């Protein structure tokens, strides 16, 4: 006997379902099922995974949704009357699936896409009815199941007789014939409770009264009994109530029986229900038969019903071509040759032609020309907006992409292989990612929607799953634990999967204290903490909600919304319920349009350069640029001073000098402590070195010790070793070490003659348990046939096996290296404009205050906030007076001040300049607290000085403070065009000087409080006396020390990283900033044990360790111990506590 479960929630029913589609499909198949439904709540979130899981398990997929229906009696917009299950009928060329998608989009159409909206995800009965029939044939394409949680089922929980019948009649009246079924569920809960057998009997009887077919289900939430406790915790997370509260309500599931029961168990359940109803064998048979009949009707045919694996691209007419897309693509490539390779001839031209023909041949045979034209259209649109854009990823391997301006990397120059991107053997749509300025990303999205039409475009979503911190918080809430206590525990969890919590307790030094509490045999607390650990592990990875993917845009033809349900994103634009894993199976074309802050920062810097130096000559002088072909400066600088960053040659020596100095804070990809160590060791000399550097700094290479031999060979400490002379051309650029995917492909090709396309298939199979064996067999056989010695074959296979799965695609590296180089170039030649761009767009991993410290290190003056000079953005300004007169400084921006609203900011800037406080009040209508904050930050200092008053900033703040408590007087209305009398600021001039001026410590504290940046002085400066007494070494002095010197360093934490390391032992990198620069320290196992809870929780650190030289210009600290600098009492130095530490926070 077979039984089909028609009502099953997977884990993708957020905060409801427990089991993954794979678990459910495997369990069903093991029980002998031939089909299985996935009916997630509110959407098709798990549907594609379900489809895949069913295929793997040899099941037919049934697809549906568990949806709330708005109450006709209640407030139509906000009250749901109950939930129903809607199943799509199959084998009707997608009519059922289409109706399901549209219905789900209906249910979300009125919601806001923001959390806590008043409108629930739900449909009206009319909407539901209107979707159930085929629009042309009028055959039913959906079946609606009325079960225990429907309005009918809920009305049956009491003993009312009439109410459920009235409600059922409404359904019968509203729905077309043949679209309704009754869902009979008994979870064997206690008599009288919902989901009891009696409850099931009532539904069964009602269905019989009206001749509506009844089906049996178990309303499944978990694959096996074990999931019941997890479901309890999810109920708590969904309702934000603790388990004791839910239990008292009572709102918990009545028991733990909602699991995927076997056919025999379902039959026994059916028997029990029939028995209780007083029905007989025939009735039981009918119930089971109707269930299977409905299941048969809903079996999906993946290809014809859901468009499985059939790529769909926008119609040719939409991208503006009439004829054959391939002809058009070839024509555009032709045009690109003239632009990208002016004057190319001879051998290079032949090579170019051959490559182009090769690529077009493959694109043509896969039928992807329209896809390339679509991407080109998007790229063109972005560039036309004047937005910086750059392709990243394997798309950079394509000459076609370079010729049609999708990519900025010349694949011929860097020897990139097209097959890594696309080949005849791989019929999946390739990924092309485009980086744009982050500040323009939403704008670009809107333009794409406008350009292709809202019916062809939607944003991609992503699933957000539980990680350790969120899991421990929700587990704590379920247990009713104190928020603060759980928060403290959560803070200590540092990047490990929640599933390994108990293991982590035993291992991680920062959890030692907590582990001790768990182990204490004091029952009440310990019991709770023990459970906390178990429940946290249970929540691991379970989806919590979907959100807009940071970059994915789905493009399709006019049928796109028949193939994916959509819901509003936070941005207001519709978002698909499918995530990136669903794209390829569903034939969806996804374009990654990624907002990159660095692109915005660079665009900003280029604009600042023009503003400051509005001519070519001035820019050339300011940036110390080369004289260029005609002596007037290089071609990439336009007459108006605009720098075309993409045209800057990649061989600027001063730029590489800067990179080698490791002062790369703010530079794309190479600013992290680990990367600064690596660039220090590697000392890049040219662009290819940068590509290699970026490719090496990946988990795989770091873990598998590729870096050390590479560096030894590079610097000639050890001779380069090649497994065979044939491989020298392949591995030469990386000194014999395999780093790139491209090298793996070539190695396969050289030693087996398999061709690059197959080589890429082989590379993909590496690391795959099932396939790797076959690849090895092929490789060994073919390599031996080509007379490679057995030991060569062994050695090379060892390399392929080890590095194949995680080597880096050189095309990625090349695409990344472009903005890396460009940012370093800007930092070298126009540091003020570049830093202003960084402050404005905050692209990096560090807090803004570290970049302020970097400006200080570079000697760039930081100009204070000024009500008349500061703008809504950071500005580079020539210093007018004082010791820095004539130099370029960066003026702080009015944005990012605590408590100052966007509207106030706009008004301030619009009405600048101001001649007095009264003028400011009248024209900017700034709030009193806002004015006080500006005064605290010194924004009125220059106004104050100009007024000739004798008082100081503290007096002014006191004065404004006093004013705050007086009733507001209506300001004098200024008639438009009327000029104020040029009296100057009487208010400021007459201010009495009474208070002492604020000290530096106080000023810095105010700046940190209100702007999170210490501008006037580094916040460590106030600790200096103590640090000097302790004999602490500053960052700028470290480089002068010998390797292995014992030192004390101190500073503010700016970065913490735990990169994957060789041997799997965790290494913690902590960088602190002491005002003279950054100190990078490494905590190995022992030091982590010593530092314990200080590792992740402490802001001000004192660290003891020994220096380790990492390169000619690089040095870091191998830590042995750390202290919390703000807790002077704990410092193990005599007299430390005596020195006041008034400046810390």
């Amino acid at each position, binding site marked *: 006997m077979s039984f089909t479960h028609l009502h099953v929630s997977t884990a993708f029913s957020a905060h409801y379902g427990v089991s993954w589609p794979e678990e459910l499909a495997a369990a069903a198949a093991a029980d002998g099922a031939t089909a299985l439904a996935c009916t997630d709540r509110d959407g098709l979130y798990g549907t594609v995974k379900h489809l895949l899981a069913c295929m793997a398990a040899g099941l037919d997929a049934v697809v549906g949704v568990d949806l709330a229906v708005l109450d006709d009696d209640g407030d139509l917009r906000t009250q749901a009357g109950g939930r129903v299950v809607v199943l799509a009928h199959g084998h009707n060329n997608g009519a059922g699936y289409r109706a399901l998608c549209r219905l789900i989009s209906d249910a979300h159409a009125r919601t806001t896409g923001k959390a806590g909206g008043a409108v629930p995800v739900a449909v009206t009965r009319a909407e539901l009815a209107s979707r159930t029939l085929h629009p042309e044939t009028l055959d039913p394409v959906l079946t609606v199941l009325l079960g225990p949680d429907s309005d009918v089922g809920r009305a049956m929980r009491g*003993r009312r007789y009439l109410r459920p019948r009235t409600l059922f009649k409404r359904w019968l009246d509203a729905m077309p014939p043949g679209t309704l079924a009754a869902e009979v569920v008994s*979870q*064997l*809960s*206690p*008599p*009288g409770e919902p989901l*009891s*057998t*009696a409850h099931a*009997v*009532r539904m069964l009887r009602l269905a019989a009264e009206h001749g509506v077919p009844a089906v049996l289900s178990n309303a499944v939430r978990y694959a*096996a*009994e*074990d999931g*019941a*406790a*997890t479901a*309890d915790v999810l109920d708590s997370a969904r309702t934000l109530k603790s*388990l*004791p509260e839910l*239990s008292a309500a009572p709102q*918990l*599931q*009545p*028991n*733990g*029986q909602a699991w995927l029961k076997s056919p025999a168990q379902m039959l026994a359940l059916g028997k029990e229900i029939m028995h*209780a109803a007083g029905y007989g064998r025939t009735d039981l048979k009918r119930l089971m038969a109707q269930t299977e009949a409905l299941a048969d009707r809903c079996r999906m045919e993946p290809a014809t019903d859901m468009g499985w694996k059939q790529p769909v691209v926008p119609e040719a007419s939409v991208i503006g071509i009439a004829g054959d897309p391939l002809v058009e693509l070839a024509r555009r490539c032709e045009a690109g040759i003239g632009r990208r390779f002016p004057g190319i001839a001879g051998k290079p031209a032949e090579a170019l032609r051959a490559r182009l023909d090769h690529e077009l041949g493959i694109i043509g045979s896969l039928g992807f020309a329209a896809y390339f034209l679509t991407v080109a259209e998007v790229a063109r649109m972005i560039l036309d907006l004047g937005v910086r854009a750059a392709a990243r990823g394997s798309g950079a391997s394509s000459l076609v992409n370079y010729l049609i301006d999708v990519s900025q990397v010349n694949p011929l120059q860097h020897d990139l292989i097209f097959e890594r991107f696309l080949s005849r053997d791989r019929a999946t749509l390739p990924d092309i990612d485009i980086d744009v300025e982050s500040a323009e990303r939403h704008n670009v999205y809107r333009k794409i929607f406008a350009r292709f039409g809202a019916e062809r475009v939607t944003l991609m979503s992503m699933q957000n799953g539980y990680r350790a911190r969120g899991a421990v918080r929700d587990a704590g809430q*379920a*247990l009713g634990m104190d928020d603060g206590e759980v928060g403290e525990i959560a803070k200590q969890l540092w990047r490990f999967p929640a*599933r390994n919590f108990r293991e982590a307790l035993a291992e991680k030094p920062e959890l030692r204290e907590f582990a001790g509490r768990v182990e204490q045999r004091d*029952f009440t607390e*310990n*019991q709770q903490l*023990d*459970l906390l650990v*178990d*429940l946290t*592990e*249970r929540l691991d990875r379970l989806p919590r909600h979907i959100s807009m993917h940071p970059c994915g845009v789905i493009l399709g033809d006019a049928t796109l919304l028949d193939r994916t349900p959509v819901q509003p994103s936070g941005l207001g634009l519709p978002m698909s319920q499918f995530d990136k894993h669903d794209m390829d199976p569903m034939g969806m074309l996804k374009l990654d349009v990624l907002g990159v802050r660095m692109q915005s920062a660079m665009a900003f810097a280029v604009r600042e350069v023009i503003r400051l130096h509005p001519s070519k000559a001035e820019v050339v002088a300011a940036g110390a640029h080369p004289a260029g072909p005609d002596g007037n400066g290089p071609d990439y600088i336009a007459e108006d001073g605009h720098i075309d960053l993409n045209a800057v040659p990649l061989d600027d020596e001063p730029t590489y000098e800067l990179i080698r100095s490791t002062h790369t804070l703010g530079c794309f990809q190479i600013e992290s402590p680990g990367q600064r160590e690596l660039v220090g060791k590697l000392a890049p000399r040219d662009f290819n070195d940068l590509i290699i550097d970026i490719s090496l700094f990946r988990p795989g290479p770091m873990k598998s010790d590729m870096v050390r031999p590479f560096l030894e060979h590079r610097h000639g400490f050890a001779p380069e070793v090649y497994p065979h002379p044939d491989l020298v051309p392949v591995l030469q650029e990386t000194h014999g070490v395999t780093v790139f995917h491209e090298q793996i492909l070539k190695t396969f090709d050289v030693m087996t003659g398999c061709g690059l396309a197959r080589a890429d298939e082989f590379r993909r199979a590496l690391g795959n348990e099932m396939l790797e064996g076959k690849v090895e067999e092929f490789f060994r056989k073919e390599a031996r046939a080509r007379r490679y010695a057995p030991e060569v074959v062994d050695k090379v296979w060892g390399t392929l096996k080890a590095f194949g799965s995680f080597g880096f695609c050189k095309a990625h590296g090349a695409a990344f290296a472009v903005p890396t180089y460009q940012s370093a170039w800007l930092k070298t030649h126009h540091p003020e404009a570049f830093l202003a761009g960084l402050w404005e767009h905050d692209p990096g991993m560090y807090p803004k205050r570290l970049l302020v410290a970097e400006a200080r290190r570079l000697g760039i003056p930081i100009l204070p906030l000024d009500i008349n000079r500061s703008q809504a953005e950071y500005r580079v300004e020539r210093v007018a007076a004082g010791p820095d007169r004539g130099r370029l400084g960066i003026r702080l921006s009015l944005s990012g001040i605590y408590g100052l609203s966007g509207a106030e900011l706009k008004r301030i800037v619009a009405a600048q300049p101001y001649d007095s406080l009264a003028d400011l009040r009248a024209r900017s209508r700034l709030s009193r607290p806002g004015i006080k904050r500006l005064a605290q930050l010194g924004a009125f200092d220059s106004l104050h000085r100009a007024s000739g008053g004798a008082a100081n900033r503290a007096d002014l703040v006191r004065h404004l403070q006093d004013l705050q408590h007086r009733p507001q007087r209506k300001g004098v209305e200024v008639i438009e065009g009327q000029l104020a009398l040029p009296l100057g600021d009487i208010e400021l001039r007459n201010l009495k000087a009474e208070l002492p001026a604020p000290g530096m410590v106080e000023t810095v504290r105010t700046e940190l409080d209100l702007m999170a940046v210490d501008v006037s002085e580094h916040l460590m400066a106030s600790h200096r006396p103590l640090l000097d007494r302790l004999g602490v070494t500053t960052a700028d002095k470290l480089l002068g020390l010998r390797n292995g010197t014992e030192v004390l360093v101190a500073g503010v934490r700016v970065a913490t990283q735990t990169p994957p390391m060789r041997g799997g032992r965790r290494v913690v990198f902590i960088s602190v900033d002491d005002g003279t620069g950054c100190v990078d320290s490494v905590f190995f196992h022992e030091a982590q044990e010593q530092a314990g809870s200080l590792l992740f929780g402490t802001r001000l650190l004192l660290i003891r360790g020994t220096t380790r030289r990492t390169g000619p210009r690089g040095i870091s600290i191998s830590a042995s111990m750390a202290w919390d600098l703000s807790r002077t009492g704990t410092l193990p130095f005599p007299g430390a506590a005596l020195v006041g530490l008034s400046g810390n926070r």
Partner: protein
Amino acid sequence: MGMFSESVDVVCTPSGQPLKLGWAGRHYTVCAEPVRWYERRQWWAEESRAPLGSGPGLVDHEIWRVQVRLSDPSPEGGARGEILTLDLSRHVGSGRWRLLRIHDALRTLPKRRRA
């Protein structure tokens, strides 16, 4: 209604329904069709661990409500005809039975079942 938790010996039918039980040295026969359900437990208060893979029996336990009558006339001449309503629970792991409740109101059960 009294609350108990003591061990009882239960003989079941092949399909797992209680048939006879021995309790406090006396033997009883089940005299009406028993009712079975699964009842929630306050596991977060009663258990100290709930690791993944703990299996069934954490969140609920199986309850059987049986009506029994003494199998053998009591030596004290107690009424052989007297019917007791008992709630039994079966432990999921060991299969052992415990007596949870003895009901005084004998007639409530059939009424409830009609619903």
